[in-house]
């Protein structure tokens, strides 16, 4: 049943939603703009008879509405309409136009404006799921249709939150096979927190390399059937860069993005994915990577981002490696100095921000705590500006101590140490290690 503009629906919380216009159709329902409590919101209106167990589905949705969003990134249901001849829907916040569907990134219709935005979006997705799981929910049906991403800021919104259920419960949905944990595809297990972790790794891989981790030459039968999908994605899953099995390598001319990116993106990522998609991990015989581990991996990679002096685009720079080259233009890269803390080894250049996670275990990866400046008279003299409200104790090579408060600058020199609240940092000359 289509809803006409102007149609007024009442909700279980005794509010009204007035339909404005149709936004789009999905597999399970149609999404409309509506006016709700004086605001424009989105209404997901289910197709009739779409739920296997409508009572359980509705009860769960009601509980979720009552509990509220686990994290700001979730476009959480805020109210549910009453039943209209067996049809109902739920109301959620609208996706602002600056956010584009993950699908449109995969189809190359939208591009990240910087490497930082891309890595930040991975971190946003990881953090969102970490929060969700912390609150005791599992998502169950993670797939490419669930994410909306701002290509400039990397901020992420997660939608389709109607199948989210508390730990141990399942609403009868298994998911899309390309994103599902093998044991779920095989029907051996219902989706839960553990299987969410597998789906998360698939999403992160796709986001990073623009290719599915299991889609290489062995995943290209002329006619893909449900049985073959089961084989490729569940019975015998083989990572396209599996270290001991090369039967599913990417194909030149088809899997172009991953062939280009995988070898030149940081080793940290290659190692993480080689583990995450090793046969034993996929088959759930070895533990899957935790959100916390993914967070560390992508935070490490975020720290490696620097602008290339040759082309101006952002690239990765690993101070531990001797020969770094720009991933865009191939120019050899070298940076003179890093700031080494317990949590990161940060390559420094003028304009670089230091983030909280680089000086604190529980730090945020978007919060800026410092910035590298360059001298107004002598641009070869660099400094580190304190952007926090706490003072930093600075000890120079002669043992002299000074405190740098908010907005004050410390001169960057080899051997100088800074006592941050949780860790010490030291400026290290790259040519010395």
């Amino acid at each position, binding site marked *: 049943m289509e809803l006409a503009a102007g149609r007024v629906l009442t909700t279980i919380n005794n509010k009204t939603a007035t339909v404005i216009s149709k936004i*789009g*159709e999905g*597999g399970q329902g149609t999404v409309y703009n509506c006016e709700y409590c004086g605001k424009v919101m989105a209404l997901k209106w289910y197709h*009739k*008879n*779409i739920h*296997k167990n409508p009572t359980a589905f509705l009860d769960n949705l009601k509980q979720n509405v009552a509990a509220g969003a686990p994290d700001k990134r979730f476009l959480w249901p805020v109210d549910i309409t009453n039943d209209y001849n067996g049809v109902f829907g739920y109301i959620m916040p609208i996706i602002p136009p600056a956010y584009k569907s993950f*699908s449109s990134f*995969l*189809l*190359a219709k939208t*591009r*990240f404006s*910087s*490497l930082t935005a*891309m890595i930040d979006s991975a971190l946003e997705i990881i953090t969102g799921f970490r929060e969700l799981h912390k609150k005791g929910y599992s998502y169950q*049906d993670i*797939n*490419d249709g669930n994410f909306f991403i701002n290509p400039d800021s990397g901020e992420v919104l997660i939608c389709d939150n109607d199948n989210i259920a508390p730990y141990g419960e*399942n609403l*009868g*949905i*298994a*998911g*899309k*096979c*390309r994103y599902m944990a093998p044991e*779920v595809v095989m*029907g051996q297990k*219902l*989706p839960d927190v553990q299987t969410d972790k597998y789906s998360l790794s698939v999403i992160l891989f*796709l986001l990073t390399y*623009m*290719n*599915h981790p299991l*889609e290489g030459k062995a*995943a*290209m*039968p*002329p*006619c*893909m*059937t*449900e049985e073959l999908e089961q084989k490729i994605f569940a019975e015998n899953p083989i990572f396209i860069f599996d270290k001991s099995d090369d039967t599913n390598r990417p194909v030149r*001319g*088809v*899997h*172009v*993005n991953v062939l*280009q*990116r995988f070898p*030149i993106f940081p080793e940290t990522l290659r190692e993480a994915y080689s583990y995450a998609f090793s046969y034993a991990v996929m088959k759930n015989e070895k533990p899957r990577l935790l959100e916390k581990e993914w967070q560390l991996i992508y935070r490490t990679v975020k720290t490696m981002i620097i602008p290339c002096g*040759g*082309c101006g*685009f952002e*690239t990765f720079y690993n101070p531990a490696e001797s020969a770094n080259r720009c*991933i*865009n*233009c*191939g120019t050899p890269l070298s940076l003179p100095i890093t700031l080494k803390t317990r949590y990161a080894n940060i390559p420094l250049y003028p304009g670089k921000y230091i983030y909280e996670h680089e000086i604190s275990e529980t730090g945020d990866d978007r919060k800026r705590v410092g910035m590298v400046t360059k001298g107004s008279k002598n641009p070869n003299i660099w400094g580190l500006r304190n952007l926090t409200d706490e003072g930093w104790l600075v000890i120079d090579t002669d043992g002299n101590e000074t405190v740098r408060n908010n907005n004050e600058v410390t001169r960057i020199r080899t051997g100088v140490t800074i006592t941050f609240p949780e860790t010490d940092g030291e400026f290290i000359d790259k040519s010395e290690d």
Partner: protein
Amino acid sequence: MPESILTSAPVPRKTMVLFFLIDTSGSMFGTKIGSVNNAIEEIIPDLKKMSEANPDAEIKIAAMEFSNGIKWVTPDGPVSADVFRWEPIEAMGVTDLGAAFTELREKLSKSAFMQEAAGSYAPVIFLMTDGEPTDEWQKPLEELSENKWFVHAIKVALAVGDDANEEVLKKFTGNENSVVKATNSELLKKMIKFVSVRSSQVASRSAAAVADNGLKPTKQEEFLDELKTAVEEMRGEAVVSDDEWD
């Protein structure tokens, strides 16, 4: 000028071909063929939208008309929903269903219509007819039934009016739930829309977990269940229209 690494190609995606096999015999003349034309024309934008936004599958359309022999509306192979345009077709002649089966079998091949670099999903084959086959169809159907694309395809047949031979259609789909009947243009349009749009989503939809019998249903089975319920509902709410075809 070097390019940013972020200037990438789209992810490789598989193709899902939606085949329309349309009876254009003389008995389809008038409101029947008119409604078919209208219904297909109107679902193209929906298919286009679905295809454009779907990184799992690109939707392509192939259409064949059969009457005195057959004719492809898309002679060069399946056309992407993004660029497909429906030109109205005319009805005249007999019902050479056997010829249609033979032709379909030939085109369901990697060396004919199914040659996609990244591969294809099992296609959807949607047959619409209003009468009895006028040629030999049993042998061609037997041969078609050995084609692996056909075996794996989602097959739906639409009987237009009361005179279609539903037994033949059941043999074609291999399942009585996938034979539906429209007795007026309102129902016809609704059914064409439902079948075309929802079957094209099967390849990339989320599957259900476990059915009541403890087995995991296939997505095709789920689709057929939904089709059955939807058809019952359409019949329930169908307005009595002035062009009842009986």
